[in-house]
């Protein structure tokens, strides 16, 4: 019997204007969104390639070890076209330096911040809007509408148990809603497949499959909410109004409110406090470095002529006294800088802990909204969630360690090539003022005529980003997927319970 109702519901749904309009709009939006998003990915990819090759070129022109401060970039994530997540909030590059350990930063400092006036566009936006509305529209009059038309009374004059009707209607919706999800994702996948810039491996497609599954689940949550509301209201138009309220609350109000409240519940420590702590540490570091320099007696005059390379300046010409000073102090200073980087990281870590506490609170508060839960699932499968960003930060930190180890292994800090391109024999021995006044300019001019060779950099470790694995993503969204399923069951059972007492006249 359930099967008959299911078939009837399915056929009826397919024939309705709302279903057709919804599915046409969904496909239309996908057709217009996908090329734009793919194009935007292409642009990001070319920017990324440009930056990476620029970085490599700069590396090949490296003159001194002190300026080895390469930048690393988070490769644009093709899956982000499904869900942008927090990717755009966060800066996608790090500069590897001795002074600081890479820490996630707000993107406000890395790209055009004025683009903050625009809202985010991704496939998840289309799916969550259209699927939720479609599901609600299919469900809103399925009980109250039949009652109004009087057909409900007719149905029950046959030998039919009430719960069978509900289950039939529910599974009818399950099958009906499978269609837009299936065709929507199929179309998107087809357009991605045709694009030459994106090449997914099996894991990528698996992720997309899971996103499809999550979208279906979201549609079912709204469908069961629709059924539930339809069973507790008397008229179809009342159901529709109530449902539009539920919809806007779960789409707009709860996600915004939960973020706002989370920030209020765990307020930030004042920035001035954090800046001050950092300044104190930096001051202490400065004192320490100064004491290292002052501990060395400078024998002779300190004169230099600087040159620029891509990541900073270096001594093209310098007197013996300066070179000697640098060679003696640089290893010690480097040690201090690395040591204080850890201390600065501690302060950032404290700030980060607050951010995570806020995020967890916001996540907790937003479990009331299926849309917010769905967004989290999509972000995780698109690798644009906090876990992914954190992983990039971690790998950047590892890379920094590699660079430091490399420098240490080559004894770069105490080498002549740390701060200057001069060779041992070329360093001018000028000790008195008279000598400098007389000889420095000609020596400099002579030295500048020869072009020093860049450093040998082929053995410097290169950065390669290894994105978050599928099992980690799956693990992090287990509870969210369970929650969506729970909502479906909850409202279905709710409908079954209330419909028992439904007055069908």
């Amino acid at each position, binding site marked *: 019997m359930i099967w008959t109702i299911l078939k009837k519901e399915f056929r009826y749904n397919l024939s309705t*204007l*709302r279903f057709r*309009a*919804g599915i046409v709009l969904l496909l239309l*939006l996908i057709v217009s969104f996908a090329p*734009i998003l793919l194009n*935007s990915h292409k*642009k990001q990819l070319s920017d990324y390639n440009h*930056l990476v090759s620029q970085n490599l070129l700069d590396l090949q022109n490296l003159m001194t070890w002190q300026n080895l401060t390469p*930048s690393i970039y988070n490769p644009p994530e093709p899956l982000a076209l499904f869900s942008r997540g*927090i990717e755009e*909030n*966060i800066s996608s*590059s790090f*500069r590897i330096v001795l002074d600081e350990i890479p820490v*996630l*930063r*707000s993107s*406000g*400092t890395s*790209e*055009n*911040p*004025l*683009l*903050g*006036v*625009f*809202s*985010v566009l991704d496939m998840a*936006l289309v799916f969550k*809007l*259209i699927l939720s509305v479609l599901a609600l*529209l299919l469900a809103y009059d399925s009980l109250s509408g039949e009652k109004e038309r009087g057909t409900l009374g007719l149905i029950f004059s046959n030998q039919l148990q009430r719960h069978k009707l509900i289950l039939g209607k529910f599974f009818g919706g399950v099958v009906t809603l499978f269609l837009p999800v299936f065709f929507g994702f199929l179309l998107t996948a087809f357009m991605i497949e045709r694009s030459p810039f994106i090449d997914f491996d099996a894991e990528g497609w698996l992720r997309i499959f899971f996103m499809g599954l999550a979208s279906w689940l979201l549609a079912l949550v709204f469908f069961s909410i629709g059924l539930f509301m339809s069973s507790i209201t008397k008229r179809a*138009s*009342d159901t*529709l*109004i109530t449902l*539009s*309220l539920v919809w*806007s609350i779960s789409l*707009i109000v709860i996600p915004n409110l939960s*973020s706002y409240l*989370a*920030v209020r519940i765990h307020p930030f420590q004042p920035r001035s406090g954090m800046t001050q702590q950092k300044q104190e540490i930096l001051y202490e570091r400065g004192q320490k470095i100064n004491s290292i320099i002052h501990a060395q007696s400078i024998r002779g*005059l300190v004169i230099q002529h*600087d040159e*620029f390379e*891509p990541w900073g*300046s270096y001594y093209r010409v310098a007197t013996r006294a300066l070179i000697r000073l640098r060679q003696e102090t640089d290893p010690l200073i480097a040690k201090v800088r690395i040591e204080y980087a850890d201390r600065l990281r501690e302060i950032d870590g404290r700030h980060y802990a607050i*951010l*995570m506490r806020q*995020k967890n609170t*916001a996540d907790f508060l937003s479990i009331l909204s299926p849309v917010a839960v769905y*967004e989290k699932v999509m*972000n995780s499968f698109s690798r644009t969630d*906090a876990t992914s960003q954190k992983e990039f930060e971690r790998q950047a930190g590892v890379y920094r360690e590699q660079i430091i180890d490399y420098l240490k292994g080559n004894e770069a800090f105490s080498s002549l090539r740390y701060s200057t391109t001069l060779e041992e024999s070329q360093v001018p021995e000028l000790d008195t003022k008279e000598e*400098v*006044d007389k000889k420095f*300019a000609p020596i400099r001019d002579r030295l500048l005529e020869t072009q020093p060779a860049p450093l040998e950099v082929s053995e410097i470790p290169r950065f390669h980003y290894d994105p978050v694995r599928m099992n980690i993503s799956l693990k992090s969204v287990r509870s969210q997927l369970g929650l969506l399923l729970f909502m479906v069951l909850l409202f279905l059972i709710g409908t079954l319970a209330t419909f028992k007492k439904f007055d069908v006249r």
Partner: protein
Amino acid sequence: MLGIIIKKEMLGNIKSKWFIVVSVVTIMVFFFSALVFVDKYKLEMRDYEEAHQKNLSGLKERAENLSFIPYYIQTYQIKPSVNRLLCEGFEKSLPNTFKMDVFSLQIPEGQRLDNYMLSRFLDIDWTFIINFILSFVALLMTYNSFSAEREQGTLSLMLANPVPRSLVLLGKYASAMLTLLVLLSSGAIISVTTVKLLGIPYQGIPDIKQMALFLLLSMAFLSAFVLVGMLFSCLISDSSSSMVILILIWIVLSIIIPSFGRIAAEKTVRVLTRTELERKILVSSAEIMRTADSFGPGAGNYDGGPTNPQARTRMFNAVTEAKNQIIDDYINRSLLQMREGRKLTRISPTSLFQYSAEALNKTGVKRFENMFIQLKKYQKKLKNFIVTKDKEDPESMHLLAEWEGHYMMLSQKPVDFDSIPKFEETDMESCVKNTIYNFSLLILWNIILGFTVYISFRKADVR
């Protein structure tokens, strides 16, 4: 006759159950938005005052020696405006902190305590409520204005009386607009009263005239949605189908089209990334310093060799100028990119309303731009002041250059603190042109829709 129709329609609206629910929700949102606004305003005003005082005390300290002033980095924040209650203009995501010394203005930064781990959330200002709640209410009010009467058979009864169709149309339109106006103004009154009662420091509530103009603008926007609702109610005989179509249209107009902006922006104009920008500045200064001798012999010698302060000053000034040029270009291109992105989204009345509301309330990107320009002017004024004061001192070498080591080349005399120019953000000149442009596009929407509704209702089959 018109009066009777309006009265009947309005009573029908107000007495319905859903209208009561929606009104309660709307008014609660207005109340809540006022609470949030006051809370945030107080925090921001505190930050702003703090930064302001810090600048003054910094300048005061440096007044003991004229040569210290040019190298002092002042930090300014955009002054929070009360108009943000009406339209926040996404100022939350825009840079608000400007650092400057006499030589250059650094690239503005958004120094807010934002949690980048949370997805961006919207600020609930009046514009938001009108854009996302009241526009929906406008559709709910009109989606069945003809189809329901047709279904009940009352439409033909009504037209059986000697009432011209245009009058029926006008009556329905006016009553929907009046109901919305009542809803909107009661929300506005609640919001303003809340702000007034809680009290915000330094400034009162937004200007009454300002609010009246804003309400007018909002009504022009809502009128477009009322007309869309009436149009589909005429065209589609089944009221639930017309609701379905309207919901889908609402999604496209309010959410989908506005979100195209970012991609359109990124596609039309390319802006340097921060890394590229820093690199460009470094390369340009390296380039100038490499050709140091073209500024005079010995311009590139700092510590050793025969120095030539005059030539060195010329060189450093060239470096500063090149850097400022690059930063200006960057800011201008960023602004251009943003504007290009907004061009396309103007198809949707929701975006039009957002932009005209920003222009009318002088919030949003315009404010950022204004601050940048004003600070540039101030910078020039401060520089002139230093140059003039420096000229009065015969012992000074009168060489001003962006290099800390050069402070010795300026007058070492104290200056009167009160005579140093101070920065005070002046009120923006209103963006009348921009407001009127967006407003007239909104009116155009209304005229086209109104005309279509009229034509389709004239031909409508009332049976």
